[in-house]
Protein backbone atom coordinates (compact mmCIF):
# COMPACT_ATOMS: atom_id res chain seq x y z
CA UNK A 1 0.00 0.00 0.00
CA UNK A 2 3.01 2.20 -0.69
CA UNK A 3 1.06 4.59 -2.91
CA UNK A 4 -2.08 4.71 -0.78
CA UNK A 5 -3.73 2.13 -3.02
CA UNK A 6 -4.91 -1.23 -1.70
CA UNK A 7 -4.02 -4.22 -3.88
CA UNK A 8 -6.94 -6.65 -4.03
CA UNK A 9 -6.93 -10.31 -4.99
CA UNK A 10 -9.68 -12.88 -5.32
CA UNK A 11 -8.93 -13.91 -1.74
CA UNK A 12 -9.13 -10.44 -0.20
CA UNK A 13 -11.75 -8.85 -2.44
CA UNK A 14 -14.99 -9.46 -0.53
CA UNK A 15 -13.55 -8.80 2.88
CA UNK A 16 -12.10 -5.45 1.80
CA UNK A 17 -15.10 -4.28 -0.17
CA UNK A 18 -17.71 -5.37 2.40
CA UNK A 19 -15.71 -4.41 5.46
CA UNK A 20 -14.84 -0.87 4.49
CA UNK A 21 -16.23 2.10 6.39
CA UNK A 22 -15.72 4.32 3.33
CA UNK A 23 -16.81 3.81 -0.27
CA UNK A 24 -14.26 1.69 -2.16
CA UNK A 25 -13.18 2.53 -5.70
CA UNK A 26 -11.81 -0.59 -7.39
CA UNK A 27 -9.61 -0.04 -10.44
CA UNK A 28 -9.75 -3.08 -12.74
CA UNK A 29 -6.47 -2.97 -14.64
CA UNK A 30 -3.72 -5.01 -16.32
CA UNK A 31 -0.09 -4.61 -17.23
CA UNK A 32 -0.79 -4.59 -20.97
CA UNK A 33 -3.34 -1.76 -20.88
CA UNK A 34 -1.91 1.64 -21.88
CA UNK A 35 -4.85 3.77 -20.64
CA UNK A 36 -4.71 1.93 -17.28
CA UNK A 37 -1.14 3.12 -16.82
CA UNK A 38 -2.16 6.69 -17.57
CA UNK A 39 -4.78 6.82 -14.81
CA UNK A 40 -2.66 5.05 -12.17
CA UNK A 41 -0.86 8.23 -11.01
CA UNK A 42 -4.18 10.12 -10.90
CA UNK A 43 -5.70 7.44 -8.67
CA UNK A 44 -2.68 7.63 -6.38
CA UNK A 45 -3.19 11.38 -6.04
CA UNK A 46 -6.89 10.93 -5.29
CA UNK A 47 -6.06 8.21 -2.74
CA UNK A 48 -3.84 10.63 -0.86
CA UNK A 49 -6.14 13.64 -1.15
CA UNK A 50 -9.30 11.72 -0.22
CA UNK A 51 -7.71 9.54 2.44
CA UNK A 52 -10.41 8.85 5.05
CA UNK A 53 -13.20 9.64 2.56
CA UNK A 54 -12.53 7.01 -0.09
CA UNK A 55 -10.58 3.79 -0.28
CA UNK A 56 -8.83 3.35 -3.61
CA UNK A 57 -8.06 -0.26 -4.52
CA UNK A 58 -6.82 -2.03 -7.61
CA UNK A 59 -7.45 -5.47 -9.00
CA UNK A 60 -5.29 -7.07 -11.67
CA UNK A 61 -7.74 -8.75 -14.08
CA UNK A 62 -5.02 -10.95 -15.51
CA UNK A 63 -4.34 -12.53 -12.13
CA UNK A 64 -7.94 -12.40 -10.84
CA UNK A 65 -10.16 -13.02 -13.88
CA UNK A 66 -12.96 -14.52 -11.76
CA UNK A 67 -13.64 -11.21 -10.00
CA UNK A 68 -13.64 -9.35 -13.33
CA UNK A 69 -16.10 -11.87 -14.71
CA UNK A 70 -18.31 -11.69 -11.62
CA UNK A 71 -18.82 -7.96 -12.17
CA UNK A 72 -19.09 -8.22 -15.98
CA UNK A 73 -15.99 -6.14 -16.59
CA UNK A 74 -15.37 -6.31 -20.36
CA UNK A 75 -13.20 -3.26 -20.83
CA UNK A 76 -10.35 -1.77 -18.84
CA UNK A 77 -9.77 0.47 -17.15
CA UNK A 78 -13.12 0.10 -15.39
CA UNK A 79 -13.67 1.66 -11.98
CA UNK A 80 -16.39 0.19 -9.79
CA UNK A 81 -17.47 2.16 -6.76
CA UNK A 82 -18.69 -0.02 -3.89
CA UNK A 83 -20.64 1.39 -0.98
CA UNK A 84 -21.96 -0.90 1.76
CA UNK A 85 -20.65 -3.80 -0.31
CA UNK A 86 -22.74 -2.97 -3.37
CA UNK A 87 -21.77 -1.59 -6.76
CA UNK A 88 -23.09 1.97 -6.79
CA UNK A 89 -21.29 3.30 -9.86
CA UNK A 90 -19.40 2.03 -12.89
CA UNK A 91 -16.91 4.26 -14.69
CA UNK A 92 -15.67 2.74 -17.95
CA UNK A 93 -12.59 4.06 -19.74
CA UNK A 94 -9.74 6.31 -18.72
CA UNK A 95 -10.60 9.88 -17.70
CA UNK A 96 -8.75 12.99 -16.59
CA UNK A 97 -8.56 13.91 -12.92
CA UNK A 98 -11.17 16.65 -13.12
CA UNK A 99 -13.73 14.40 -14.72
CA UNK A 100 -12.97 11.50 -12.40
CA UNK A 101 -13.45 13.65 -9.32
CA UNK A 102 -16.71 14.90 -10.77
CA UNK A 103 -17.95 11.34 -11.21
CA UNK A 104 -16.82 10.40 -7.71
CA UNK A 105 -18.32 13.53 -6.19
CA UNK A 106 -21.49 11.85 -4.94
CA UNK A 107 -19.35 9.55 -2.78
CA UNK A 108 -17.42 12.36 -1.16
CA UNK A 109 -18.55 14.23 1.94
CA UNK A 110 -19.93 17.58 0.80
CA UNK A 111 -17.19 20.17 0.84
CA UNK A 112 -17.27 23.46 2.86
Amino acid sequence: MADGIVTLTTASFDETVNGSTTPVVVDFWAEWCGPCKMIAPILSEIAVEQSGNLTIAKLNVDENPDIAMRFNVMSIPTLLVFDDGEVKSRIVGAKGKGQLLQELNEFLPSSH
Partner: protein
Amino acid sequence: MSHRQVIIIGSGPAGLTAAIYAARANLNPLVIEGEPSSTSDQPGGQLMLTTEVENFPGFPNGVMGPELMLNMRQQALRFGAEFLTEKVTKVGFGSRPFHIEVRDQQFSADSVIVSTGAQSLMLGLESEKRLLGHGLSTCATCDGFFFRGQEIAVVGGGDSAVEEATFLTKFASKVYLIHRRDELRASKIMQDRALNNPKIEMVWNTVVQELIGDQKLEGAVLRSTVDDSTRTLNVGGLFVAIGHRPNTDLFRGHLEMHDNGYLITKPDSSYTNVDGVFACGDVQDQIYRQAITAAGSGCMAAIDCERWLEANH
Protein backbone atom coordinates in the same frame (compact mmCIF):
# COMPACT_ATOMS: atom_id res chain seq x y z
CA MET B 1 -0.28 33.34 -15.35
CA SER B 2 3.03 31.67 -16.02
CA HIS B 3 5.15 32.39 -19.07
CA ARG B 4 7.12 29.89 -21.16
CA GLN B 5 9.40 30.13 -24.16
CA VAL B 6 7.84 27.07 -25.75
CA ILE B 7 4.59 25.27 -25.05
CA ILE B 8 4.00 21.95 -26.78
CA ILE B 9 0.38 20.83 -27.04
CA GLY B 10 0.09 17.06 -27.38
CA SER B 11 2.39 14.19 -26.43
CA GLY B 12 2.51 11.52 -29.13
CA PRO B 13 5.73 10.76 -31.01
CA ALA B 14 5.69 14.26 -32.61
CA GLY B 15 5.18 16.23 -29.39
CA LEU B 16 7.63 14.16 -27.36
CA THR B 17 10.35 14.34 -30.02
CA ALA B 18 9.83 18.10 -30.18
CA ALA B 19 10.10 18.14 -26.38
CA ILE B 20 13.38 16.21 -26.41
CA TYR B 21 14.90 18.57 -28.98
CA ALA B 22 13.53 21.75 -27.37
CA ALA B 23 14.68 20.65 -23.92
CA ARG B 24 18.18 19.89 -25.22
CA ALA B 25 18.20 23.38 -26.73
CA ASN B 26 17.59 24.73 -23.21
CA LEU B 27 14.16 26.08 -24.14
CA ASN B 28 12.60 24.56 -21.02
CA PRO B 29 9.46 23.38 -22.85
CA LEU B 30 6.15 22.77 -21.13
CA VAL B 31 4.29 19.82 -22.64
CA ILE B 32 0.54 19.99 -22.08
CA GLU B 33 0.11 16.31 -22.70
CA GLY B 34 -3.66 15.88 -22.63
CA GLU B 35 -5.88 13.83 -20.34
CA PRO B 36 -6.27 10.07 -20.08
CA SER B 37 -9.05 8.62 -22.19
CA SER B 38 -9.71 5.30 -23.86
CA THR B 39 -9.64 6.78 -27.32
CA SER B 40 -6.38 7.71 -29.02
CA ASP B 41 -6.85 11.35 -27.96
CA GLN B 42 -4.76 10.96 -24.81
CA PRO B 43 -1.24 11.33 -23.43
CA GLY B 44 1.12 9.25 -25.56
CA GLY B 45 -1.31 9.33 -28.47
CA GLN B 46 -2.42 6.53 -30.73
CA LEU B 47 0.43 4.18 -29.82
CA MET B 48 -0.95 3.93 -26.27
CA LEU B 49 -3.67 1.70 -27.70
CA THR B 50 -1.49 -0.51 -29.87
CA THR B 51 0.38 -3.69 -29.16
CA GLU B 52 3.67 -4.42 -30.81
CA VAL B 53 5.27 -1.77 -33.02
CA GLU B 54 7.46 -3.60 -35.51
CA ASN B 55 8.51 -0.78 -37.82
CA PHE B 56 10.02 1.79 -35.47
CA PRO B 57 13.77 1.76 -36.23
CA GLY B 58 16.07 0.71 -33.42
CA PHE B 59 13.92 -2.10 -32.02
CA PRO B 60 14.91 -5.28 -33.88
CA ASN B 61 12.48 -7.36 -31.83
CA GLY B 62 9.67 -4.82 -31.86
CA VAL B 63 8.47 -2.76 -28.92
CA MET B 64 5.09 -2.38 -27.24
CA GLY B 65 3.41 0.91 -28.18
CA PRO B 66 2.78 2.12 -24.60
CA GLU B 67 6.35 1.21 -23.63
CA LEU B 68 7.79 3.17 -26.56
CA MET B 69 5.76 6.22 -25.57
CA LEU B 70 6.63 6.02 -21.87
CA ASN B 71 10.31 5.78 -22.90
CA MET B 72 10.02 8.88 -25.09
CA ARG B 73 8.40 10.72 -22.19
CA GLN B 74 11.22 9.66 -19.85
CA GLN B 75 13.75 10.86 -22.39
CA ALA B 76 12.10 14.29 -22.57
CA LEU B 77 11.93 14.47 -18.75
CA ARG B 78 15.62 13.67 -18.52
CA PHE B 79 16.48 16.86 -20.40
CA GLY B 80 14.18 19.04 -18.36
CA ALA B 81 10.88 19.09 -20.23
CA GLU B 82 7.94 19.68 -17.90
CA PHE B 83 4.60 17.95 -18.24
CA LEU B 84 1.07 18.99 -17.42
CA THR B 85 -1.58 16.25 -17.61
CA GLU B 86 -4.43 18.48 -18.71
CA LYS B 87 -6.32 19.25 -21.85
CA VAL B 88 -5.95 22.65 -23.47
CA THR B 89 -9.36 24.30 -23.43
CA LYS B 90 -8.60 27.54 -25.27
CA VAL B 91 -5.87 29.14 -27.35
CA GLY B 92 -5.28 32.75 -28.35
CA PHE B 93 -2.87 33.17 -31.24
CA GLY B 94 -4.00 36.65 -32.27
CA SER B 95 -1.23 38.54 -30.48
CA ARG B 96 2.12 37.75 -28.87
CA PRO B 97 2.86 36.34 -26.42
CA PHE B 98 0.39 33.60 -27.28
CA HIS B 99 -2.27 32.64 -24.77
CA ILE B 100 -3.16 29.11 -23.67
CA GLU B 101 -5.70 27.94 -21.10
CA VAL B 102 -6.30 24.61 -19.44
CA ARG B 103 -9.06 23.83 -16.92
CA ASP B 104 -7.99 26.25 -14.20
CA GLN B 105 -4.65 27.68 -15.34
CA GLN B 106 -3.49 30.19 -17.93
CA PHE B 107 -0.18 30.40 -19.72
CA SER B 108 1.55 32.79 -22.06
CA ALA B 109 4.15 31.54 -24.51
CA ASP B 110 6.64 33.01 -26.99
CA SER B 111 6.08 30.04 -29.30
CA VAL B 112 3.74 27.07 -29.55
CA ILE B 113 4.21 23.64 -31.12
CA VAL B 114 0.93 21.94 -32.00
CA SER B 115 1.10 18.14 -32.00
CA THR B 116 -2.40 17.09 -30.97
CA GLY B 117 -2.51 14.18 -33.41
CA ALA B 118 -5.65 12.39 -34.48
CA GLN B 119 -8.29 10.31 -32.75
CA SER B 120 -10.15 7.18 -33.75
CA LEU B 121 -13.37 7.58 -35.65
CA MET B 122 -16.40 5.84 -34.22
CA LEU B 123 -19.26 4.31 -36.17
CA GLY B 124 -21.61 7.18 -35.36
CA LEU B 125 -24.44 4.97 -34.08
CA GLU B 126 -26.63 5.93 -31.12
CA SER B 127 -26.21 2.43 -29.63
CA GLU B 128 -22.45 2.97 -29.52
CA LYS B 129 -22.56 5.05 -26.33
CA ARG B 130 -24.62 2.44 -24.50
CA LEU B 131 -22.42 -0.49 -25.51
CA LEU B 132 -18.97 1.06 -25.28
CA GLY B 133 -17.18 -0.97 -22.64
CA HIS B 134 -19.88 -3.64 -22.81
CA GLY B 135 -18.60 -5.54 -25.80
CA LEU B 136 -17.87 -2.56 -28.01
CA SER B 137 -14.27 -1.45 -27.77
CA THR B 138 -11.78 0.99 -29.24
CA CYS B 139 -8.77 -0.72 -27.66
CA ALA B 140 -7.91 -4.27 -28.66
CA THR B 141 -4.90 -4.42 -26.37
CA CYS B 142 -7.00 -3.36 -23.39
CA ASP B 143 -10.03 -5.52 -23.97
CA GLY B 144 -9.06 -8.52 -26.13
CA PHE B 145 -8.42 -10.51 -22.98
CA PHE B 146 -12.13 -10.49 -22.09
CA PHE B 147 -13.13 -12.36 -25.25
CA ARG B 148 -11.20 -15.56 -24.76
CA GLY B 149 -12.75 -18.37 -26.77
CA GLN B 150 -15.48 -16.12 -28.23
CA GLU B 151 -16.37 -15.01 -31.75
CA ILE B 152 -15.75 -11.32 -32.26
CA ALA B 153 -15.46 -8.79 -35.09
CA VAL B 154 -13.17 -5.97 -36.12
CA VAL B 155 -14.41 -3.16 -38.38
CA GLY B 156 -11.96 -1.52 -40.78
CA GLY B 157 -9.41 -2.31 -43.47
CA GLY B 158 -6.30 -0.29 -42.69
CA ASP B 159 -3.18 -1.19 -40.73
CA SER B 160 -4.82 -0.66 -37.33
CA ALA B 161 -7.78 -2.87 -38.15
CA VAL B 162 -5.65 -5.67 -39.55
CA GLU B 163 -3.19 -5.46 -36.67
CA GLU B 164 -6.04 -5.60 -34.17
CA ALA B 165 -7.67 -8.55 -35.91
CA THR B 166 -4.39 -10.46 -35.91
CA PHE B 167 -3.73 -9.61 -32.27
CA LEU B 168 -7.24 -10.62 -31.22
CA THR B 169 -6.81 -14.15 -32.63
CA LYS B 170 -4.64 -14.77 -29.56
CA PHE B 171 -7.84 -14.72 -27.51
CA ALA B 172 -10.86 -15.16 -29.75
CA SER B 173 -11.92 -18.41 -31.39
CA LYS B 174 -12.78 -16.47 -34.54
CA VAL B 175 -12.37 -12.90 -35.76
CA TYR B 176 -14.55 -11.46 -38.52
CA LEU B 177 -12.83 -8.59 -40.28
CA ILE B 178 -15.56 -6.35 -41.68
CA HIS B 179 -14.49 -3.99 -44.44
CA ARG B 180 -16.56 -1.79 -46.72
CA ARG B 181 -14.40 -2.46 -49.79
CA ASP B 182 -13.23 -5.64 -51.53
CA GLU B 183 -9.57 -5.14 -50.69
CA LEU B 184 -7.59 -4.04 -47.66
CA ARG B 185 -5.69 -0.75 -47.38
CA ALA B 186 -3.22 -2.22 -44.88
CA SER B 187 0.44 -2.79 -45.73
CA LYS B 188 1.22 -6.00 -47.63
CA ILE B 189 2.94 -7.76 -44.73
CA MET B 190 -0.06 -7.11 -42.46
CA GLN B 191 -2.51 -8.20 -45.16
CA ASP B 192 -0.69 -11.47 -45.76
CA ARG B 193 -0.66 -12.19 -42.07
CA ALA B 194 -4.40 -11.62 -41.77
CA LEU B 195 -5.42 -13.41 -44.96
CA ASN B 196 -3.35 -16.45 -44.00
CA ASN B 197 -4.65 -16.57 -40.45
CA PRO B 198 -7.16 -19.44 -40.19
CA LYS B 199 -9.01 -17.68 -37.35
CA ILE B 200 -9.71 -14.55 -39.43
CA GLU B 201 -12.67 -14.52 -41.80
CA MET B 202 -12.95 -11.59 -44.20
CA VAL B 203 -16.36 -9.98 -44.58
CA TRP B 204 -15.94 -7.85 -47.72
CA ASN B 205 -18.10 -5.00 -49.01
CA THR B 206 -19.91 -4.68 -45.72
CA VAL B 207 -20.63 -2.00 -43.14
CA VAL B 208 -22.09 -2.13 -39.63
CA GLN B 209 -25.59 -0.68 -39.71
CA GLU B 210 -26.66 -1.25 -36.11
CA LEU B 211 -25.50 -2.85 -32.88
CA ILE B 212 -27.67 -5.37 -31.04
CA GLY B 213 -27.85 -5.74 -27.27
CA ASP B 214 -29.19 -3.84 -24.27
CA GLN B 215 -26.83 -4.43 -21.36
CA LYS B 216 -24.10 -5.92 -23.48
CA LEU B 217 -23.31 -6.46 -27.12
CA GLU B 218 -24.95 -9.51 -28.65
CA GLY B 219 -24.39 -8.89 -32.34
CA ALA B 220 -24.41 -6.47 -35.22
CA VAL B 221 -26.63 -5.84 -38.22
CA LEU B 222 -24.42 -5.81 -41.30
CA ARG B 223 -25.33 -4.16 -44.59
CA SER B 224 -23.82 -5.04 -47.95
CA THR B 225 -22.33 -2.09 -49.84
CA VAL B 226 -23.05 -3.97 -53.08
CA ASP B 227 -26.78 -4.72 -52.88
CA ASP B 228 -27.88 -3.15 -49.54
CA SER B 229 -28.99 -6.52 -48.20
CA THR B 230 -28.72 -6.93 -44.43
CA ARG B 231 -27.90 -9.80 -42.13
CA THR B 232 -27.15 -10.35 -38.47
CA LEU B 233 -23.77 -11.41 -37.16
CA ASN B 234 -23.77 -12.77 -33.61
CA VAL B 235 -20.66 -11.57 -31.85
CA GLY B 236 -19.99 -10.67 -28.22
CA GLY B 237 -17.21 -8.25 -29.05
CA LEU B 238 -16.78 -5.59 -31.73
CA PHE B 239 -13.62 -3.55 -32.18
CA VAL B 240 -13.73 -0.36 -34.24
CA ALA B 241 -10.70 0.72 -36.30
CA ILE B 242 -12.14 2.65 -39.22
CA GLY B 243 -9.71 5.54 -39.38
CA HIS B 244 -8.91 8.81 -37.68
CA ARG B 245 -9.74 12.48 -37.66
CA PRO B 246 -7.31 15.22 -36.66
CA ASN B 247 -7.71 16.82 -33.23
CA THR B 248 -8.03 20.38 -34.47
CA ASP B 249 -11.40 21.59 -33.14
CA LEU B 250 -9.47 23.74 -30.67
CA PHE B 251 -7.68 25.58 -33.48
CA ARG B 252 -10.65 26.33 -35.72
CA GLY B 253 -10.56 30.04 -36.52
CA HIS B 254 -7.00 30.28 -35.16
CA LEU B 255 -4.93 28.23 -37.63
CA GLU B 256 -5.41 27.50 -41.32
CA MET B 257 -6.61 24.00 -42.02
CA HIS B 258 -7.82 21.89 -44.90
CA ASP B 259 -11.54 21.19 -45.26
CA ASN B 260 -11.04 17.83 -43.52
CA GLY B 261 -9.48 19.52 -40.48
CA TYR B 262 -5.79 18.74 -41.01
CA LEU B 263 -3.59 21.77 -40.28
CA ILE B 264 -1.79 23.40 -43.19
CA THR B 265 1.98 23.76 -42.83
CA LYS B 266 4.25 25.60 -45.24
CA PRO B 267 6.12 23.26 -47.61
CA ASP B 268 9.28 21.62 -46.23
CA SER B 269 8.69 23.08 -42.77
CA SER B 270 6.49 22.99 -39.69
CA TYR B 271 5.42 26.67 -40.02
CA THR B 272 1.69 27.33 -39.76
CA ASN B 273 0.06 30.52 -41.01
CA VAL B 274 0.71 32.12 -37.59
CA ASP B 275 4.31 33.21 -37.07
CA GLY B 276 5.66 31.42 -33.99
CA VAL B 277 3.13 28.59 -34.05
CA PHE B 278 4.42 25.31 -35.47
CA ALA B 279 2.63 22.03 -36.22
CA CYS B 280 3.96 18.50 -36.45
CA GLY B 281 2.81 14.90 -36.51
CA ASP B 282 -0.53 13.49 -37.60
CA VAL B 283 -2.36 16.75 -36.94
CA GLN B 284 -0.83 18.07 -40.19
CA ASP B 285 -0.11 14.81 -42.03
CA GLN B 286 -2.81 13.10 -44.02
CA ILE B 287 -0.39 11.09 -46.14
CA TYR B 288 2.12 9.10 -44.07
CA ARG B 289 0.74 9.06 -40.50
CA GLN B 290 3.46 6.84 -39.05
CA ALA B 291 5.10 7.04 -35.63
CA ILE B 292 8.47 7.62 -37.27
CA THR B 293 7.24 10.39 -39.59
CA ALA B 294 5.51 12.04 -36.64
CA ALA B 295 8.74 11.87 -34.65
CA GLY B 296 10.68 13.26 -37.62
CA SER B 297 8.32 16.18 -38.03
CA GLY B 298 8.44 16.81 -34.27
CA CYS B 299 12.19 17.23 -34.62
CA MET B 300 11.62 19.64 -37.52
CA ALA B 301 9.18 21.69 -35.44
CA ALA B 302 11.61 21.99 -32.52
CA ILE B 303 14.43 23.11 -34.83
CA ASP B 304 12.16 25.55 -36.69
CA CYS B 305 10.94 26.87 -33.36
CA GLU B 306 14.43 27.28 -31.90
CA ARG B 307 15.63 29.20 -34.97
CA TRP B 308 12.53 31.35 -35.01
CA LEU B 309 12.99 32.25 -31.34
CA GLU B 310 16.62 33.13 -31.96
CA ALA B 311 15.66 35.44 -34.82
CA ASN B 312 12.68 37.04 -33.08
CA HIS B 313 13.56 37.33 -29.39
